[in-house]
Every structure is written in structure tokens, then in C-alpha cells.
């Protein structure tokens, strides 16, 4: 176990102690115990920077299931480190923010922080695992923790609905991704990403290439809320705001982007990858931005805006994959798309994080997030206003903030797409910059709505639940740090280029680098009077016009019928599934034990008869049979007689005693068959069992008069005779066929040498197969507790009944 392994599981370990801290230190906000960890981890991950800047990566493996090629391999490379820093950095800020956001008296803080730490571990695991199966496990864990956090206020209907929705969609995608991982394994025989990349050519020419590509992309698109799977993200806004800022804007939703980036070296050469990633990204971008304008809830606007921005990053990664077709690095203008993707990823985390926190502050201090009720808050909350305006301007792509730079680069990348001479882009390439431009106009509009509808305009105190005032310092620290980053990255973008962007690019486009090469990233403010600048100017002009006339044209949205929306489709699908499955289940789960047993036995007969016939397995061989002694015949007759007599027994007592008789006879059998341990056990067990039976049934006198003999039923008789015959046949064939040498010899030979015992049965039980025994006594203990519970615990309301 190396240090990065520890870093991944550290939050998980801390989460174990959180409930303890919560109980013991009631008067200290639990968040203070959590806060040091992400800060520590952030600092720890910073120490990897020199290594990744040299183009090296740290890799350390820990055996987990080596026989299946599944090992817990931690790999810290440029891309993984970038995400790890985001996760821990934003994580620290969010924890700090949550300390002031969630009141320690009202909220179940222990649950909250346990879930949050669970998420942190899971997310670090996703981005730092080289083994895909381990990555998948962490991936699903992020879905689970997201589910728990969205459903944090589980008493609300909407929270539960949102939690379920996000879970269903992301886990569905996760399963598809698992399918893709397994397909990749079939193609290459490895789960390691590093090895996959080195075998990219084999994969590319394999027949399973396209299915694997589609499966992996399905996982990425569901997680990163791409069209048409984005519908879970707006509903996920039911989570507390710190969670929305952390999971649903800065980190978890970017896991899909991480996945696409990670797999670019494997799949990126294919035209399907370029087309799917780029066009779905662009579609999501424009769709999200158009619908964001429609929303009236601050967090809903931010949710749609996140959807749209994720689409933007996605499309950039798709366009960047095209760079793989141009083998020369110098003047490879297409890599700018990847640069822009990474840069925007960082920028988005800063400005969207600050905007979410500002929205949380508004909600916290006024009691509403509805922009129709808000307005004129500028004078009451000047700091929040400043935070929001910087965040929103950056999001809209205005100078001098970092959003402006990445948006310029986005335009550059999209314009470059038209210049490519692959994949029919000569004909269709122009669509990308046009759509990108339209989407940017809408992005501008909703950014303006976000700030100006809230902070300017008419102040409406009568619609607010609380009297608005500026938030306390604690709530403001985190968003202030984030907006300072917005400004710093805006003015000094090249702070990031060498230390973070270039190493991350090296992980995404490794084939373009020779030995010792690195990507020269230089982000500059002023490119001269080029097409991108005019595009931005156009965005601003048209955006202002649209914002001014917003109230007039927003009625268009009403023209879209509700019934055709994706949400309606999702609800219809879920309800349909529920009702159909409940109907189907009720037809055969009718509550009668007898029918269930009939199913079991019928299935047993059918499956075994088919096997016996199909595999030609029935064999009858009278060789190698041991002799029959007179005692054995007597015992056999006794067992048969006893068991048949039970069928005709009239009273309960008789059948219990007969069962006991059969049991004792069986133990005599064990003696004859040279099994003294079994005989002893069976004898004592039989005694205790009979005592138990008698205690249970003898002391219930009132039911005794209902005792009757069993009535004959033909179907039952047929089934039982069928089962009996089949078992006889199996016993005969099992005896007659010898497929391989028995493994028992090992035990006979090693009992004394390895375990220093003489009683083989006992040695097998306590030594060779000790696990069986361990679990067996556990089962026994559970059974006894179950019995104890059934008798002692009377929870039901018998008084009412």
C-alpha cells in the first residue's frame, strides 16, 4: 500500500469516525473535523506536480484479485492529478462553506459528512485508478454517494424523486460502461488503462471496437449529463447547495469528461468517436443553454448551465481527438481544442462553484431562489453581488475573466473543425462554429438573467420569507477564494499552462509526443482582430438585445408541449415498468408456499432431466460396488418404513417420533459406513431436535383436535415420485461415473504432516476447510438470534388487532 492508495481511502477511513465525533462533540460543528483532510490531501497532491511536469507518472500496484487481473493500481499522471487537485481543492472549500450553510442544531450532520467523504474517496478512486474494474467500482460508488446526498432531505418527495432518477440513469450508464470494460478485456486481456493504450492498434482493428466504444461513451454521457441523459441533473438540485456546487458542477459530473479524456488515446482515432463526442457535446451545449433561459429558479438555471458547459467541454474533447490524425506536433493547431477543454474544465469549476455558492447564500439569506420574487438585492448583499457578477461575466465569456479566454479558445477550436479534411468535415464542419456561437448567445443571456434579475430591478421584500442581509463571513470565504481564482486565471492564464494543462494534455494525446517532448501551451489575451473576437462581439451585442427583450420572446417556450419532454418520457417509462412488473410478479407470486415449492421442484425435475438426457449422463455400473450386510438391509428397511409411515401418521406426536426414528436409524447407518463423527453428531442432534419438536408442538393443545390424516393428492404424488426417481438416478450415475481423481487423497496424506492431527474429519473442519466452519457457526449464531428475536420481540400492535 503506497501513499496514493492511502490518500484514496483516507476519506473513507475518516468517515468511519464521523458519527463518533458527531456524538461526542455536539457543540462543535462536525464539518471542522472534516475540513483538515481535503486541505491535507490537496497539499499532498501538489507535491506530485514536479513529477507530472517532467512528463512522468507515479504508478504503484497493490494485489487485490491477481488471478482475474484485478489489482488496486494507483496511477498519478497529469490528467489524474488535475482531477485530484480539483476534487480535494473544491472539496475543502465546499466543506468550509457547508460548515456555515448547514446549521449544526437542525441537520443530520453525521450523515451528511459521511456521504460527502464517501464521495470524496470514490471520486479520487475514479481518477487515480489505472485498473478499470477498480475504477468501475469507485465510479458506481460516486453514483451511490450522489444518490444519498441528493436524498439528504429524504422527507421531501422531490428529493427522493431526484435521487432515484439520478441513480437509475447513472447506474444504467455505469453498467453499460462495465460492458465496455469487459469488451476491452476480451480484446486485449487486460484491465489496465496504460496497457490498453499501448495496444490501441489491436483494439482499433478488432470487431468489438465499435460496441466497446458505444458502451464506454454511454457511461460517460450519462454521468456527465449529456443529451438526452441530462434530465437527472436539474432534479439533482434538490440536494443541499454545497453538494450541488461540489458533486453536480465541479467534480462528479466531470467524471464522464474524465472518462472521455482517458479513453481518447484508445478510441480517438475512429470517426465515430469524433462525431459522437463532438456532436452530442454541441447538442447538449445548445440545448442546455436554451433551456437555462426558461428557468426561474436560480439553481435550475445553474443546473442547465452546467449541462450546457459540460457539453462544451465534451465537444472540445471530441474535436481534440481529431488532432490524433495529424502526426506532426509542430503547428498542430487542433490540439488547441484539448488545451481549451482542460482550461475550461478548471475555469468552469471556479466560476460555477462560486455561482452555486452565491445562489446558496441568496437562498439562505432570503428564503427563496425564485428570480420572480428576488430583485434589487444589490444594496443588501454587496459582496454576494460582486461574487455573482464576476462569476456570471466569466461564464458569459467576458473579459478580463478566465471564462473569456477559454471561450475564445473554444471558438478557435470550433473554427478549426471546419478546416479539417477528414470525416466529411469539408461539408458539415461549418455547423459546429454556428451552433457554438448560438449557444454562446444564450449562455450570455442566462448569465445576465442570473445576476441582474436577482440583484437589480425592483426590491420586493413582501415576497421574501426573511429580511435579506449580507451573509456571515464564513459563508463568503469559499466563493471569494473561487472568484479571486477567476480573476487570477483571467489575468495570468499561463500560471496553469505548464504545471497543469500541459501534463494533462500529455495524458490525453500521448501519441503526439516524442520522448522528452511536452506540449507548449501558451494562452494569450490578445490574438489580433481575428474571427473569434468578432464572434465574441456578436455574442455580446445580440445577447444584450435578447436580454432586453427577454420578457417578450420567452413565451415561445410555452409552445413546446409538456407531453413531449424527455422528463415525461422518463416518468412514463418508470411508471410503465413498475405497473407491468407488479402485474407479472403477481401472476406467479401468489402467496402460497405450496406453489413456490411446486415451482422449485418442477424446475429441479425439468433442469436435471434435460441435463441427464442431453449430456447422456445417466450411467449404471455394477462394478466397484461394496457388499450388502444383513444389518444394512435391516436399517434400510427401517428408514423406508419410517419415512412412509410418516405419510400416514394421523397425529402430530406420531410423525415427530417417526422422524426421530428415521434420524436414529440414519446415525446407525453412519456407524456402518465408518463415519464415527457423523454418527455421534447425528445422535445428539436427533435427541435435541426431538425435544425441540415436542416442546413446540406438544404444548399447544387447542389445535390437537384438528389433526387429520393427509389426503391423497395426485399432482403432489407425481411430483414427489418424480423427485425421488430423479435423485435415485443421479445417485446411481454419480456412483457409476468417475470423471476425475478424488481430491480426498490430499487430506488423507497431509492430515498428520500439515496439521498434526489424526482425525481427518475434524482436521478438515477446523484447519483445511476452516472457512466453512467459521461461516457455519456464524449462520448458527444468526439463526439463534433470529429465534430469540421471534419469541422475545413483539413489535406488532397486537393490542389493536
Amino acid at each position, binding site marked *: 500500500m503506497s501513499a496514493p492508495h492511502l490518500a484514496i481511502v483516507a476519506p473513507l477511513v475518516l468517515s468511519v469516525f464521523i458519527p463518533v465525533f458527531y456524538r461526542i462533540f455536539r457543540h462543535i460543528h462536525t464539518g471542522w473535523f472534516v475540513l483538515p483532510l481535503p486541505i491535507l490531501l490537496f497539499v499532498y497532491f501538489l507535491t506530485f506536480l514536479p513529477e507530472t511536469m517532467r512528463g512522468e507518472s507515479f504508478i504503484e500496484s497493490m494485489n487485490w484479485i491477481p488471478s482475474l487481473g484485478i489489482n488496486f493500481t494507483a496511477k498519478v499522471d497529469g490528467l489524474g492529478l488535475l482531477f485530484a487537485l480539483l476534487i480535494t481543492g473544491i472539496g475543502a472549500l465546499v466543506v468550509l462553506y457547508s460548515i456555515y450553510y448547514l446549521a449544526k442544531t437542525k441537520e443530520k450532520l453525521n450523515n451528511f459528512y459521511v456521504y460527502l467523504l464517501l464521495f470524496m474517496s470514490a471520486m479520487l478512486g475514479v481518477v487515480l485508478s489505472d485498473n478499470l474494474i477498480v475504477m468501475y467500482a469507485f465510479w458506481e460508488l460516486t453514483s451511490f454517494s450522489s444518490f444519498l446526498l441528493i436524498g439528504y432531505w429524504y422527507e421531501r418527495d422531490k428529493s427522493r424523486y431526484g435521487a432515484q432518477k439520478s441513480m437509475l440513469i447513472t447506474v444504467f450508464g455505469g453498467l453499460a460502461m462495465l460492458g465496455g470494460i469487459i469488451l476491452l478485456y476480451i480484446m486485449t486481456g487486460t484491465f489496465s488503462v496504460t496497457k490498453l493504450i499501448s495496444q490501441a492498434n489491436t483494439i482499433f482493428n478488432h470487431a468489438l471496437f465499435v460496441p466497446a466504444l458505444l458502451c464506454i461513451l454511454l457511461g460517460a454521457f450519462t454521468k456527465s449529463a449529456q443529451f438526452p441523459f441530462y434530465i437527472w441533473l436539474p432534479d439533482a438540485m434538490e440536494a443541499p447547495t454545497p453538494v450541488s456546487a461540489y458533486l453536480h458542477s465541479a467534480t462528479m459530473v466531470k467524471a464522464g469528461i474524465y472518462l472521455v479524456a482517458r479513453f481518447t488515446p484508445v478510441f480517438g482515432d475512429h470517426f465515430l468517436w469524433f462525431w459522437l463526442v463532438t456532436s452530442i457535446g454541441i447538442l447538449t451545449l445548445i440545448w442546455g443553454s436554451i433551456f437555462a433561459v426558461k428557468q426561474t429558479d436560480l439553481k435550475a438555471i445553474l443546473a442547465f448551465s452546467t449541462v450546457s458547459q459540460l457539453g462544451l467541454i465534451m465537444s472540445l474533447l471530441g474535436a481534440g481527438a481529431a488532432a490524433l490524425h495529424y502526426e506532426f506536433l509542430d503547428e498542430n493547431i487542433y490540439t488547441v481544442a484539448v488545451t481549451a477543454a482542460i482550461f475550461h474544465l478548471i475555469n468552469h469549476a471556479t466560476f460555477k462553484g462560486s455561482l452555486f455558492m452565491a445562489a446558496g447564500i441568496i437562498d439562505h439569506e432570503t428564503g427563496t431562489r425564485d428570480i420572480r420574487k428576488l430583485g434589487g438585492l444589490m444594496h443588501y448583499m454587496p459582496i454576494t453581488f460582486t461574487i455573482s457578477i464576476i462569476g456570471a461575466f466569466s461564464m458569459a465569456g467576458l473579459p478580463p475573466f478566465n471564462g473569456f479566454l477559454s471561450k475564445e479558445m473554444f471558438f478557435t477550436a470550433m473554427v478549426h473543425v471546419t478546416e479539417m479534411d477528414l470525416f466529411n468535415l469539408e461539408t458539415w464542419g461549418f455547423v459546429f462554429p454556428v451552433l457554438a456561437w448560438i449557444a454562446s448567445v444564450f449562455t450570455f443571456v442566462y448569465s445576465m438573467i442570473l445576476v441582474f434579475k436577482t440583484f437589480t430591478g425592483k426590491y420586493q421584500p413582501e415576497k421574501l420569507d426573511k429580511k435579506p442581509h449580507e451573509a456571515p463571513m464564513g459563508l463568503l470565504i469559499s466563493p471569494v477564494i473561487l472568484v479571486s481564482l477567476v480573476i487570477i486565471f483571467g489575468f495570468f492564464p499561463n500560471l496553469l499552462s505548464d504545471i497543469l494543462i500541459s501534463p494533462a494534455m500529455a495524458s490525453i494525446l500521448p501519441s503526439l509526443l516524442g520522448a522528452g517532448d511536452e506540449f507548449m501551451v501558451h494562452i494569450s489575451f490578445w490574438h489580433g482582430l481575428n474571427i473569434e473576437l468578432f464572434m465574441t462581439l456578436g455574442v455580446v451585442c445580440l445577447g444584450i438585445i435578447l436580454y432586453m427583450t427577454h420578457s417578450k420572446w420567452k413565451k415561445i417556450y410555452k409552445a413546446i408541449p409538456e407531453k413531449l419532454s424527455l422528463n415525461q418520457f422518463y416518468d412514463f417509462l418508470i411508471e410503465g415498468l413498475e405497473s407491468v412488473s407488479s402485474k407479472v410478479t403477481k401472476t406467479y407470486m401468489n402467496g402460497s408456499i405450496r406453489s413456490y415449492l411446486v415451482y422449485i421442484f418442477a424446475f429441479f425435475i425439468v433442469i436435471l432431466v434435460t441435463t441427464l438426457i442431453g449430456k447422456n449422463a445417466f450411467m449404471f455400473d455394477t462394478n466397484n460396488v461394496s457388499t450388502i450386510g444383513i444389518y444394512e438391509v435391516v436399517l434400510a428397511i427401517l428408514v423406508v418404513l419410517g419415512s412412509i409411515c410418516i405419510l400416514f401418521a394421523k397425529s402430530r406426536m406420531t410423525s415427530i417420533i417417526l422422524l426421530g426414528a428415521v434420524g436414529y436409524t440414519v446415525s446407525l447407518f453412519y456407524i456402518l459406513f465408518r463415519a464415527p463423527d457423523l454418527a*455421534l453428531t447425528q445422535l445428539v442432534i436427533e435427541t435435541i431436535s426431538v425435544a425441540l419438536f415436542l416442546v413446540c408442538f406438544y404444548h399447544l393443545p387447542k389445535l390437537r383436535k384438528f389433526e387429520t390424516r393427509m389426503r391423497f393428492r395426485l399432482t403432489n404424488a407425481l411430483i414427489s415420485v418424480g423427485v425421488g426417481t430423479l435423485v435415485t438416478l443421479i445417485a446411481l450415475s454419480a456412483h457409476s461415473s468417475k470423471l476425475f481423481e478424488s481430491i480426498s487423497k490430499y487430506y488423507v496424506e497431509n492430515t498428520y504432516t500439515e496439521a498434526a492431527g489424526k482425525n481427518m474429519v475434524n482436521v478438515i*473442519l477446523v484447519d483445511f476447510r476452516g*472457512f466453512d466452519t467459521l461461516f457455519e457457526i456464524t449462520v448458527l449464531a444468526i439463526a439463534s438470534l433470529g429465534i430469540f428475536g421471534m419469541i422475545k420481540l413483539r413489535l406488532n400492535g397486537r393490542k389493536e388487532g
Partner: protein
Amino acid sequence: MRKTNNIILETAVKVLLFFIALYSVYIFTAGHYYPGGGFIGGLMTAGAIVLLLITYDIKTVTKILPVNYRILTAIGLLFAIGTSAGSLIYDLPFLTHAFGDVHLPLLGELSIHTATLFDLGVYFVVVGVTMTIIQTIGEDE
């Protein structure tokens, strides 16, 4: 269970019980070499206590043997898991047992097994489980 008044049984049990209990301990310790072991020993001990329960009533027996059988079960499980996990300290796989011979004054050569500790766990669990079941049913009126 019902209070019975059976002189023959009571007298016989007083003597028999001692032998059964002794025999069950013997059969448990001999388990590694001869038929026996934790399961059988435990069941036999439980059988002895059941015999006691049948002869006397439940209150008398709890007075003689004030044992909480659920805790006994837990102790047994801990024993079994503890012995199994013990090997981890020596960097051996879970459930690796060790054995050796010790020379004791008066008793002579004695071989010691950690497997016996594991079996002791099994013994405790079996006694605990059986008695929990019988006692809870017996106490229920």
C-alpha cells in the same frame, strides 16, 4: 418447562450429568485425534443441560448455571475469528494454524494446537446457540 416430580429421574440425572459433562469435555479435547471435536462436544454439553432442564424447571437451572447463552455465542465467534486472524500478525494467510509440543511436569508430553482454540470457539457457539434456542422456547409461555 413444567415442574415434574420424578425422584428416579432427578437422582439419576445428578449422577449422569457429571459423566455426560465430563465425557463431552473429553470428546471435545480428543477431537483432533479421535472422533469428536467442537461440534459434538458442544452438542453433548447442550444435551446435558437440556436433560437438566427436563428434570428440573428453568428457574432452577438458570440459578445453577447463570450463563447468558447469547453472550456465550458471541464469545465463541470471537474466539474462532480471533484465532483465525491471529495468523495475520505473523504475516500468514487467514486461518493458518500452528502447533507444537510442550513438556509439562506431571502430565508429560502435550501437543498444543491453535486449531483447538478455533474448535473451542465452535464449542462455545454450539452450546450457546442450542441453549439460546431451547431456553427462549422454554421460557415462552
